[in-house]
Protein backbone atom coordinates (compact mmCIF):
# COMPACT_ATOMS: atom_id res chain seq x y z
CA UNK A 1 0.00 0.00 0.00
CA UNK A 2 2.93 2.35 0.54
CA UNK A 3 4.38 1.19 -2.80
CA UNK A 4 7.65 0.14 -1.28
CA UNK A 5 9.75 -2.32 -3.28
CA UNK A 6 9.88 -5.54 -1.28
CA UNK A 7 11.12 -9.03 -1.90
CA UNK A 8 9.28 -11.74 -0.01
CA UNK A 9 11.38 -14.67 1.16
CA UNK A 10 10.21 -17.74 3.04
CA UNK A 11 12.50 -19.40 5.54
CA UNK A 12 11.94 -22.16 8.05
CA UNK A 13 14.04 -20.46 10.69
CA UNK A 14 12.38 -17.10 10.23
CA UNK A 15 11.24 -16.97 13.87
CA UNK A 16 14.81 -17.36 15.04
CA UNK A 17 16.19 -14.71 12.71
CA UNK A 18 13.70 -12.18 13.97
CA UNK A 19 14.88 -9.95 16.84
CA UNK A 20 11.64 -10.43 18.72
CA UNK A 21 11.05 -14.06 17.84
CA UNK A 22 8.06 -13.12 15.74
CA UNK A 23 7.40 -12.93 12.07
CA UNK A 24 7.14 -11.01 9.83
CA UNK A 25 10.25 -8.98 9.91
CA UNK A 26 11.95 -6.78 7.37
CA UNK A 27 15.61 -6.60 6.63
CA UNK A 28 16.68 -3.20 5.33
CA UNK A 29 20.34 -2.46 4.83
CA UNK A 30 21.80 -3.46 8.17
CA UNK A 31 18.61 -3.06 10.16
CA UNK A 32 16.10 -5.71 11.10
CA UNK A 33 12.65 -4.70 12.31
CA UNK A 34 9.92 -7.14 13.28
CA UNK A 35 6.18 -7.07 13.83
CA UNK A 36 3.60 -4.73 12.37
CA UNK A 37 3.78 -1.95 14.95
CA UNK A 38 7.55 -1.36 14.79
CA UNK A 39 7.61 -1.86 11.01
CA UNK A 40 4.96 0.85 10.61
CA UNK A 41 6.99 3.18 12.84
CA UNK A 42 10.18 2.41 10.93
CA UNK A 43 8.58 3.05 7.57
CA UNK A 44 7.04 6.23 8.92
CA UNK A 45 10.44 7.45 10.08
CA UNK A 46 11.66 6.97 6.53
CA UNK A 47 8.89 9.21 5.28
CA UNK A 48 6.13 6.82 4.21
CA UNK A 49 2.94 6.82 6.18
CA UNK A 50 -0.64 5.91 5.39
CA UNK A 51 -2.25 7.65 8.33
CA UNK A 52 -0.91 11.19 8.06
CA UNK A 53 -4.19 12.49 6.72
CA UNK A 54 -6.16 11.45 9.79
CA UNK A 55 -7.04 13.81 12.61
CA UNK A 56 -6.49 12.98 16.28
CA UNK A 57 -9.89 11.44 16.87
CA UNK A 58 -9.56 9.28 13.76
CA UNK A 59 -6.10 8.14 14.80
CA UNK A 60 -7.49 7.16 18.19
CA UNK A 61 -10.24 5.22 16.45
CA UNK A 62 -7.78 3.50 14.17
CA UNK A 63 -5.63 2.41 17.09
CA UNK A 64 -8.69 1.19 18.96
CA UNK A 65 -9.82 -0.95 16.01
CA UNK A 66 -6.34 -2.35 15.58
CA UNK A 67 -6.41 -3.42 19.22
CA UNK A 68 -9.82 -4.99 18.67
CA UNK A 69 -8.40 -7.08 15.85
CA UNK A 70 -5.41 -8.09 17.95
CA UNK A 71 -7.52 -8.76 20.99
CA UNK A 72 -10.20 -10.85 19.31
CA UNK A 73 -9.16 -12.13 15.92
CA UNK A 74 -5.57 -12.89 16.77
CA UNK A 75 -6.48 -14.59 20.03
CA UNK A 76 -9.22 -16.58 18.33
CA UNK A 77 -6.78 -17.71 15.64
CA UNK A 78 -4.32 -18.80 18.30
CA UNK A 79 -7.09 -20.57 20.18
CA UNK A 80 -8.24 -22.43 17.12
CA UNK A 81 -4.75 -23.44 16.19
CA UNK A 82 -3.58 -24.57 19.58
CA UNK A 83 -6.50 -25.19 21.92
CA UNK A 84 -8.98 -26.95 19.68
CA UNK A 85 -8.03 -30.59 19.87
CA UNK A 86 -9.23 -31.54 16.43
CA UNK A 87 -7.24 -28.84 14.67
CA UNK A 88 -4.19 -29.38 16.83
CA UNK A 89 -4.06 -33.06 16.16
CA UNK A 90 -4.65 -32.94 12.45
CA UNK A 91 -2.95 -29.81 11.30
CA UNK A 92 -1.02 -27.70 13.75
CA UNK A 93 1.27 -30.30 15.28
CA UNK A 94 2.45 -31.60 11.95
CA UNK A 95 2.70 -28.17 10.40
CA UNK A 96 4.68 -26.70 13.28
CA UNK A 97 6.98 -29.65 13.75
CA UNK A 98 7.54 -30.27 10.05
CA UNK A 99 11.03 -28.77 9.66
CA UNK A 100 12.44 -30.72 12.58
CA UNK A 101 13.47 -34.35 13.00
CA UNK A 102 11.81 -36.68 15.48
CA UNK A 103 11.55 -36.26 18.48
CA UNK A 104 12.14 -32.54 18.25
CA UNK A 105 9.02 -31.97 16.20
CA UNK A 106 6.80 -33.38 18.94
CA UNK A 107 8.61 -31.68 21.79
CA UNK A 108 8.55 -28.23 20.22
CA UNK A 109 4.91 -28.55 19.24
CA UNK A 110 3.87 -29.58 22.73
CA UNK A 111 5.93 -26.81 24.28
CA UNK A 112 4.34 -24.20 22.06
CA UNK A 113 0.90 -25.59 22.84
CA UNK A 114 1.58 -25.41 26.55
CA UNK A 115 2.74 -21.80 26.24
CA UNK A 116 -0.32 -20.78 24.28
CA UNK A 117 -2.65 -22.49 26.75
CA UNK A 118 -0.97 -20.64 29.62
CA UNK A 119 -1.50 -17.35 27.87
CA UNK A 120 -5.14 -18.14 27.18
CA UNK A 121 -5.68 -18.93 30.82
CA UNK A 122 -4.06 -15.67 31.92
CA UNK A 123 -6.36 -13.55 29.79
CA UNK A 124 -9.48 -15.45 30.74
CA UNK A 125 -9.96 -17.48 27.56
CA UNK A 126 -8.95 -20.73 29.26
CA UNK A 127 -12.49 -21.85 29.90
CA UNK A 128 -13.98 -20.75 26.63
CA UNK A 129 -15.52 -23.33 24.39
CA UNK A 130 -15.07 -23.27 20.64
CA UNK A 131 -18.60 -21.94 20.22
CA UNK A 132 -17.94 -19.02 22.52
CA UNK A 133 -14.76 -18.20 20.63
CA UNK A 134 -16.64 -18.30 17.34
CA UNK A 135 -19.26 -16.01 18.81
CA UNK A 136 -16.53 -13.54 19.77
CA UNK A 137 -15.15 -13.70 16.24
CA UNK A 138 -18.62 -13.04 14.91
CA UNK A 139 -18.99 -10.03 17.19
CA UNK A 140 -15.63 -8.71 16.03
CA UNK A 141 -16.48 -9.20 12.36
CA UNK A 142 -19.81 -7.52 12.91
CA UNK A 143 -18.08 -4.52 14.46
CA UNK A 144 -15.60 -4.35 11.57
CA UNK A 145 -18.38 -4.73 9.04
CA UNK A 146 -20.41 -1.97 10.66
CA UNK A 147 -17.41 0.32 10.82
CA UNK A 148 -16.54 -0.36 7.18
CA UNK A 149 -20.11 0.11 5.98
CA UNK A 150 -20.15 0.81 2.25
CA UNK A 151 -16.81 2.60 2.10
CA UNK A 152 -13.95 1.11 0.12
CA UNK A 153 -11.55 1.33 3.06
CA UNK A 154 -11.98 1.95 6.77
CA UNK A 155 -11.09 5.60 6.50
CA UNK A 156 -12.88 6.20 3.27
CA UNK A 157 -10.80 6.58 0.14
CA UNK A 158 -7.30 5.78 1.33
CA UNK A 159 -6.10 2.58 2.95
CA UNK A 160 -4.36 2.79 6.30
CA UNK A 161 -2.56 0.40 8.65
CA UNK A 162 -5.92 -0.78 9.88
CA UNK A 163 -6.89 -1.92 6.39
CA UNK A 164 -3.63 -3.80 6.07
CA UNK A 165 -4.07 -5.49 9.44
CA UNK A 166 -7.69 -6.46 8.83
CA UNK A 167 -6.87 -7.73 5.36
CA UNK A 168 -4.03 -9.84 6.72
CA UNK A 169 -6.20 -11.56 9.28
CA UNK A 170 -9.35 -11.97 7.22
CA UNK A 171 -7.52 -13.19 4.17
CA UNK A 172 -5.69 -15.80 6.20
CA UNK A 173 -8.88 -16.96 7.82
CA UNK A 174 -10.62 -17.20 4.47
CA UNK A 175 -7.90 -19.05 2.64
CA UNK A 176 -6.43 -21.42 5.21
CA UNK A 177 -7.77 -24.93 5.15
CA UNK A 178 -8.73 -26.19 8.58
CA UNK A 179 -10.62 -29.20 9.87
CA UNK A 180 -13.76 -27.17 10.13
CA UNK A 181 -14.79 -24.15 8.16
CA UNK A 182 -16.76 -22.42 10.86
CA UNK A 183 -14.28 -19.62 11.29
CA UNK A 184 -14.24 -18.69 7.63
CA UNK A 185 -18.01 -19.08 7.46
CA UNK A 186 -18.31 -16.46 10.18
CA UNK A 187 -16.33 -14.02 8.08
CA UNK A 188 -18.18 -14.91 4.89
CA UNK A 189 -21.44 -13.84 6.53
CA UNK A 190 -20.35 -10.26 6.03
CA UNK A 191 -20.39 -9.46 2.36
CA UNK A 192 -18.73 -6.08 2.68
CA UNK A 193 -15.75 -7.69 4.42
CA UNK A 194 -15.45 -10.22 1.57
CA UNK A 195 -15.64 -7.44 -0.99
CA UNK A 196 -13.01 -5.53 0.99
CA UNK A 197 -10.60 -8.47 0.88
CA UNK A 198 -11.15 -9.02 -2.84
CA UNK A 199 -10.63 -5.34 -3.54
CA UNK A 200 -7.30 -5.24 -1.72
CA UNK A 201 -6.21 -8.49 -3.28
CA UNK A 202 -6.94 -7.18 -6.73
CA UNK A 203 -5.52 -3.73 -6.24
CA UNK A 204 -2.36 -4.67 -4.45
CA UNK A 205 -1.65 -8.32 -5.22
CA UNK A 206 -3.05 -8.57 -8.69
CA UNK A 207 -1.52 -9.65 -11.94
CA UNK A 208 0.51 -6.48 -12.33
CA UNK A 209 2.88 -8.27 -9.99
CA UNK A 210 3.04 -6.09 -6.88
CA UNK A 211 3.50 -9.17 -4.76
CA UNK A 212 5.73 -12.08 -5.54
CA UNK A 213 3.14 -14.70 -4.72
CA UNK A 214 -0.19 -14.30 -6.42
CA UNK A 215 -2.88 -14.66 -3.77
CA UNK A 216 -6.18 -16.25 -4.61
CA UNK A 217 -9.41 -15.74 -2.76
CA UNK A 218 -11.64 -18.79 -3.05
Amino acid at each position, binding site marked *: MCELPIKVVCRANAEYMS*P*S*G*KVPFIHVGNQVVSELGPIVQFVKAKGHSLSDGLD*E*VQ*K*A*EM*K*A*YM*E*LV*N*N*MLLTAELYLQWCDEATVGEITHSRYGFPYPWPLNHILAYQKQWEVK*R*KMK*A*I*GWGNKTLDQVLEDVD*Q*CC*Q*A*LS*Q*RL*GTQPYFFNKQPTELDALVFGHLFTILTTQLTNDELSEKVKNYSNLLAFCRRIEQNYFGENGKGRIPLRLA
Partner: protein
Amino acid sequence: MERRGGGHFRGARGRGGGKMAAPLELRCWGGGWGLPSVHSESLVVLAYAKFSGAPLKVSVIDNTWRGSRGDVPVLTSEDNTVSQPAKILNFLRKQKYNADYHLSAKQGADTLAYIALLEEKLLPAVLHTFWVENDNYFTVTKPWFASRIPFPLSLILPGRMSKRALNRILLTKGEPPLFHLKEVEAQIYRDAKECLNLLSDRLGTSQFFFGDTPTTLDAYVFGFLAPLYKVRFPKVQLQEHLKQLSNLCRFCDDILSCYFRLSFSGDSYIKAGKSNASEDISYKGLGTME
Protein backbone atom coordinates in the same frame (compact mmCIF):
# COMPACT_ATOMS: atom_id res chain seq x y z
CA MET B 1 -37.85 11.91 30.83
CA GLU B 2 -38.28 11.15 27.18
CA ARG B 3 -36.65 8.23 25.53
CA ARG B 4 -36.08 7.50 21.92
CA GLY B 5 -36.81 3.99 20.77
CA GLY B 6 -40.48 3.96 21.64
CA GLY B 7 -41.66 0.98 23.52
CA HIS B 8 -38.22 -0.29 24.36
CA PHE B 9 -38.00 -0.98 28.04
CA ARG B 10 -36.32 1.74 30.02
CA GLY B 11 -35.22 2.12 33.56
CA ALA B 12 -36.13 0.47 36.76
CA ARG B 13 -39.67 1.59 36.88
CA GLY B 14 -42.36 0.42 34.52
CA ARG B 15 -41.14 -3.00 33.68
CA GLY B 16 -42.55 -3.55 30.19
CA GLY B 17 -44.39 -6.77 29.54
CA GLY B 18 -45.32 -7.29 33.17
CA LYS B 19 -42.25 -9.43 33.79
CA MET B 20 -41.44 -9.83 37.45
CA ALA B 21 -37.72 -9.35 37.55
CA ALA B 22 -35.90 -11.79 39.72
CA PRO B 23 -33.85 -10.03 42.37
CA LEU B 24 -30.35 -9.45 41.09
CA GLU B 25 -27.56 -9.67 43.57
CA LEU B 26 -24.05 -8.52 42.90
CA ARG B 27 -21.10 -9.58 45.00
CA CYS B 28 -18.16 -7.27 44.65
CA TRP B 29 -15.27 -5.63 46.40
CA GLY B 30 -16.10 -2.61 48.49
CA GLY B 31 -15.20 1.01 48.20
CA GLY B 32 -12.81 3.56 49.54
CA TRP B 33 -11.34 6.93 48.70
CA GLY B 34 -14.76 8.15 47.58
CA LEU B 35 -15.37 5.25 45.21
CA PRO B 36 -18.14 2.67 45.49
CA SER B 37 -15.56 0.02 44.70
CA VAL B 38 -11.79 0.07 44.32
CA HIS B 39 -11.80 -2.97 42.07
CA SER B 40 -11.96 -2.04 38.37
CA GLU B 41 -14.15 -4.89 37.21
CA SER B 42 -16.62 -4.45 40.06
CA LEU B 43 -16.75 -0.75 39.33
CA VAL B 44 -17.53 -1.35 35.65
CA VAL B 45 -20.54 -3.47 36.59
CA LEU B 46 -21.73 -1.01 39.25
CA ALA B 47 -21.48 1.90 36.84
CA TYR B 48 -23.30 0.04 34.09
CA ALA B 49 -26.07 -0.94 36.50
CA LYS B 50 -26.52 2.71 37.44
CA PHE B 51 -26.52 3.84 33.83
CA SER B 52 -29.05 1.26 32.72
CA GLY B 53 -31.22 1.50 35.79
CA ALA B 54 -30.79 -2.12 36.81
CA PRO B 55 -31.83 -2.65 40.42
CA LEU B 56 -28.92 -4.48 41.96
CA LYS B 57 -28.66 -5.62 45.48
CA VAL B 58 -25.01 -5.11 46.18
CA SER B 59 -23.22 -7.34 48.65
CA VAL B 60 -19.82 -6.04 49.51
CA ILE B 61 -17.23 -8.57 50.47
CA ASP B 62 -16.19 -8.09 54.04
CA ASN B 63 -14.80 -10.05 56.90
CA THR B 64 -17.99 -11.71 57.89
CA TRP B 65 -19.31 -12.57 54.48
CA ARG B 66 -18.92 -16.13 53.45
CA GLY B 67 -18.35 -17.44 50.01
CA SER B 68 -15.80 -17.58 47.29
CA ARG B 69 -13.82 -14.49 46.57
CA GLY B 70 -12.00 -15.80 43.59
CA ASP B 71 -14.26 -14.81 40.81
CA VAL B 72 -15.51 -11.38 41.74
CA PRO B 73 -17.65 -9.55 40.59
CA VAL B 74 -20.40 -12.16 40.43
CA LEU B 75 -24.05 -11.58 39.62
CA THR B 76 -26.67 -14.01 40.83
CA SER B 77 -30.31 -14.06 39.91
CA GLU B 78 -32.70 -16.81 40.88
CA ASP B 79 -31.26 -19.47 38.61
CA ASN B 80 -28.20 -17.92 37.05
CA THR B 81 -24.72 -17.13 38.16
CA VAL B 82 -22.67 -14.90 35.91
CA SER B 83 -19.11 -13.76 36.39
CA GLN B 84 -16.77 -11.48 34.44
CA PRO B 85 -17.90 -7.99 33.55
CA ALA B 86 -18.50 -8.63 29.85
CA LYS B 87 -20.79 -11.56 30.57
CA ILE B 88 -22.59 -9.73 33.37
CA LEU B 89 -23.27 -6.76 31.12
CA ASN B 90 -24.57 -9.09 28.41
CA PHE B 91 -26.84 -10.73 30.94
CA LEU B 92 -28.18 -7.37 32.10
CA ARG B 93 -28.85 -6.38 28.51
CA LYS B 94 -30.80 -9.56 27.96
CA GLN B 95 -32.84 -8.68 31.04
CA LYS B 96 -33.68 -5.44 29.22
CA TYR B 97 -31.34 -3.20 31.19
CA ASN B 98 -29.66 -1.70 28.20
CA ALA B 99 -27.66 1.50 28.35
CA ASP B 100 -26.74 1.34 24.66
CA TYR B 101 -30.14 1.28 23.03
CA HIS B 102 -29.69 4.69 21.45
CA LEU B 103 -26.36 3.94 19.84
CA SER B 104 -25.99 3.48 16.11
CA ALA B 105 -24.40 0.33 14.71
CA LYS B 106 -21.15 2.15 14.13
CA GLN B 107 -21.10 3.47 17.69
CA GLY B 108 -21.68 -0.05 18.96
CA ALA B 109 -18.67 -1.16 16.91
CA ASP B 110 -16.61 1.73 18.28
CA THR B 111 -17.53 0.62 21.79
CA LEU B 112 -16.04 -2.83 21.21
CA ALA B 113 -12.92 -1.33 19.70
CA TYR B 114 -12.30 1.10 22.54
CA ILE B 115 -12.89 -1.58 25.16
CA ALA B 116 -10.26 -3.69 23.39
CA LEU B 117 -7.92 -0.70 23.50
CA LEU B 118 -8.48 -0.35 27.24
CA GLU B 119 -7.81 -4.01 27.90
CA GLU B 120 -4.70 -4.19 25.77
CA LYS B 121 -3.05 -0.89 26.55
CA LEU B 122 -4.33 0.42 29.85
CA LEU B 123 -5.15 -2.65 31.91
CA PRO B 124 -1.56 -4.00 32.20
CA ALA B 125 -0.37 -0.71 33.69
CA VAL B 126 -3.36 -0.46 36.05
CA LEU B 127 -2.72 -4.02 37.21
CA HIS B 128 0.92 -3.16 37.69
CA THR B 129 0.18 -0.01 39.69
CA PHE B 130 -2.12 -1.90 42.03
CA TRP B 131 -0.63 -5.35 42.30
CA VAL B 132 2.95 -5.49 41.14
CA GLU B 133 4.63 -2.22 42.04
CA ASN B 134 6.06 -3.18 45.43
CA ASP B 135 5.56 0.09 47.28
CA ASN B 136 1.97 0.33 46.17
CA TYR B 137 1.13 -3.29 46.75
CA PHE B 138 2.58 -3.63 50.22
CA THR B 139 1.47 -0.27 51.60
CA VAL B 140 -1.96 0.10 50.02
CA THR B 141 -3.40 -2.78 48.04
CA LYS B 142 -2.50 -5.75 50.20
CA PRO B 143 -3.60 -4.24 53.53
CA TRP B 144 -6.83 -3.03 52.01
CA PHE B 145 -7.80 -6.40 50.55
CA ALA B 146 -6.46 -8.39 53.47
CA SER B 147 -8.57 -6.41 55.90
CA ARG B 148 -11.67 -7.46 54.02
CA ILE B 149 -10.96 -11.15 53.91
CA PRO B 150 -11.20 -13.39 56.95
CA PHE B 151 -8.12 -15.08 58.29
CA PRO B 152 -6.55 -17.36 57.07
CA LEU B 153 -7.61 -16.54 53.51
CA SER B 154 -6.28 -13.04 54.03
CA LEU B 155 -2.80 -14.49 54.00
CA ILE B 156 -3.28 -16.25 50.72
CA LEU B 157 -5.73 -14.44 48.51
CA PRO B 158 -4.00 -11.07 48.04
CA GLY B 159 -0.79 -12.85 47.15
CA ARG B 160 -2.63 -14.96 44.65
CA MET B 161 -4.27 -11.95 43.05
CA SER B 162 -0.91 -10.25 42.82
CA LYS B 163 0.66 -13.23 41.19
CA ARG B 164 -2.19 -13.52 38.73
CA ALA B 165 -1.73 -9.87 37.76
CA LEU B 166 2.00 -10.29 37.25
CA ASN B 167 1.41 -13.42 35.23
CA ARG B 168 -1.03 -11.69 32.99
CA ILE B 169 1.34 -8.81 32.37
CA LEU B 170 4.30 -11.04 31.60
CA LEU B 171 2.41 -13.47 29.41
CA THR B 172 0.75 -10.83 27.29
CA LYS B 173 3.40 -8.14 27.22
CA GLY B 174 6.62 -9.75 28.30
CA GLU B 175 7.59 -11.32 25.06
CA PRO B 176 11.09 -10.98 23.60
CA PRO B 177 12.96 -8.66 23.17
CA LEU B 178 11.59 -7.40 26.49
CA PHE B 179 13.20 -9.97 28.72
CA HIS B 180 13.53 -8.00 31.90
CA LEU B 181 10.59 -6.92 34.04
CA LYS B 182 11.93 -3.37 34.06
CA GLU B 183 11.73 -3.14 30.29
CA VAL B 184 8.22 -4.58 30.29
CA GLU B 185 7.25 -2.01 32.90
CA ALA B 186 8.62 0.83 30.81
CA GLN B 187 6.70 -0.40 27.77
CA ILE B 188 3.36 -0.90 29.52
CA TYR B 189 3.49 2.53 31.15
CA ARG B 190 4.30 4.10 27.79
CA ASP B 191 1.34 2.28 26.26
CA ALA B 192 -0.93 3.30 29.13
CA LYS B 193 -0.01 6.97 28.85
CA GLU B 194 -0.65 6.86 25.11
CA CYS B 195 -3.98 5.17 25.74
CA LEU B 196 -4.98 7.86 28.23
CA ASN B 197 -4.07 10.52 25.67
CA LEU B 198 -6.16 8.78 23.03
CA LEU B 199 -9.13 8.57 25.39
CA SER B 200 -8.79 12.22 26.22
CA ASP B 201 -8.68 13.11 22.51
CA ARG B 202 -11.73 11.01 21.86
CA LEU B 203 -13.75 12.42 24.78
CA GLY B 204 -12.98 16.03 23.93
CA THR B 205 -15.43 18.33 25.62
CA SER B 206 -18.46 16.02 25.63
CA GLN B 207 -19.92 14.84 28.86
CA PHE B 208 -19.82 11.17 27.88
CA PHE B 209 -18.23 9.29 25.03
CA PHE B 210 -21.38 9.14 22.93
CA GLY B 211 -23.13 12.41 23.64
CA ASP B 212 -24.91 13.13 26.88
CA THR B 213 -26.12 9.71 27.95
CA PRO B 214 -23.67 7.26 29.46
CA THR B 215 -23.19 3.88 27.80
CA THR B 216 -21.21 0.68 28.18
CA LEU B 217 -18.03 2.39 27.07
CA ASP B 218 -18.43 5.06 29.74
CA ALA B 219 -18.86 2.29 32.32
CA TYR B 220 -15.64 0.61 31.22
CA VAL B 221 -13.60 3.80 31.05
CA PHE B 222 -14.91 4.88 34.43
CA GLY B 223 -14.20 1.45 35.92
CA PHE B 224 -10.59 1.53 34.77
CA LEU B 225 -9.84 5.18 35.40
CA ALA B 226 -11.60 5.97 38.66
CA PRO B 227 -9.48 3.73 40.93
CA LEU B 228 -6.36 5.03 39.25
CA TYR B 229 -7.56 8.57 39.81
CA LYS B 230 -8.72 8.33 43.39
CA VAL B 231 -6.71 5.74 45.29
CA ARG B 232 -3.74 7.27 47.10
CA PHE B 233 -0.57 5.45 46.13
CA PRO B 234 3.07 6.11 46.99
CA LYS B 235 4.20 5.49 43.41
CA VAL B 236 2.03 7.61 41.19
CA GLN B 237 3.50 8.09 37.72
CA LEU B 238 0.40 6.98 35.86
CA GLN B 239 -1.87 8.85 38.24
CA GLU B 240 0.09 12.04 37.64
CA HIS B 241 -0.31 11.62 33.93
CA LEU B 242 -4.05 11.05 34.30
CA LYS B 243 -4.42 14.16 36.44
CA GLN B 244 -3.01 16.26 33.64
CA LEU B 245 -5.86 15.15 31.39
CA SER B 246 -8.50 17.33 32.93
CA ASN B 247 -11.40 16.17 30.77
CA LEU B 248 -10.90 12.57 31.94
CA CYS B 249 -10.80 13.70 35.58
CA ARG B 250 -13.91 15.74 35.05
CA PHE B 251 -15.55 12.69 33.45
CA CYS B 252 -14.87 10.55 36.55
CA ASP B 253 -15.95 13.26 38.97
CA ASP B 254 -19.17 13.84 37.05
CA ILE B 255 -20.13 10.18 37.17
CA LEU B 256 -19.28 9.92 40.84
CA SER B 257 -21.33 12.92 41.75
CA CYS B 258 -24.28 12.12 39.46
CA TYR B 259 -24.66 8.42 39.93
CA PHE B 260 -22.88 7.48 43.10
CA ARG B 261 -23.72 10.23 45.51
CA LEU B 262 -25.65 7.80 47.63
CA SER B 263 -23.76 5.10 49.41
CA PHE B 264 -24.79 1.49 48.75
CA SER B 265 -27.16 1.17 51.61
CA GLY B 266 -29.13 4.03 50.16
CA ASP B 267 -28.40 6.36 53.04
CA SER B 268 -29.45 9.89 52.47
CA TYR B 269 -27.12 11.89 50.38
CA ILE B 270 -26.18 14.18 53.21
CA LYS B 271 -23.72 11.48 54.11
CA ALA B 272 -21.80 11.96 50.88
CA GLY B 273 -19.46 14.45 52.45
CA LYS B 274 -18.58 17.49 50.44
CA SER B 275 -21.58 19.21 48.98
CA ASN B 276 -21.53 19.24 45.24
CA ALA B 277 -22.18 22.82 44.40
CA SER B 278 -22.09 22.22 40.68
CA GLU B 279 -25.17 20.05 40.90
CA ASP B 280 -27.19 21.48 38.09
CA ILE B 281 -26.66 18.33 36.09
CA SER B 282 -30.04 16.71 35.70
CA TYR B 283 -30.23 13.12 36.81
CA LYS B 284 -30.73 11.47 33.48
CA GLY B 285 -31.51 7.83 33.85
CA LEU B 286 -31.12 7.92 37.62
CA GLY B 287 -34.81 8.31 38.25
CA THR B 288 -35.73 7.34 41.74
CA MET B 289 -32.41 6.48 43.23
CA GLU B 290 -32.26 2.78 43.87
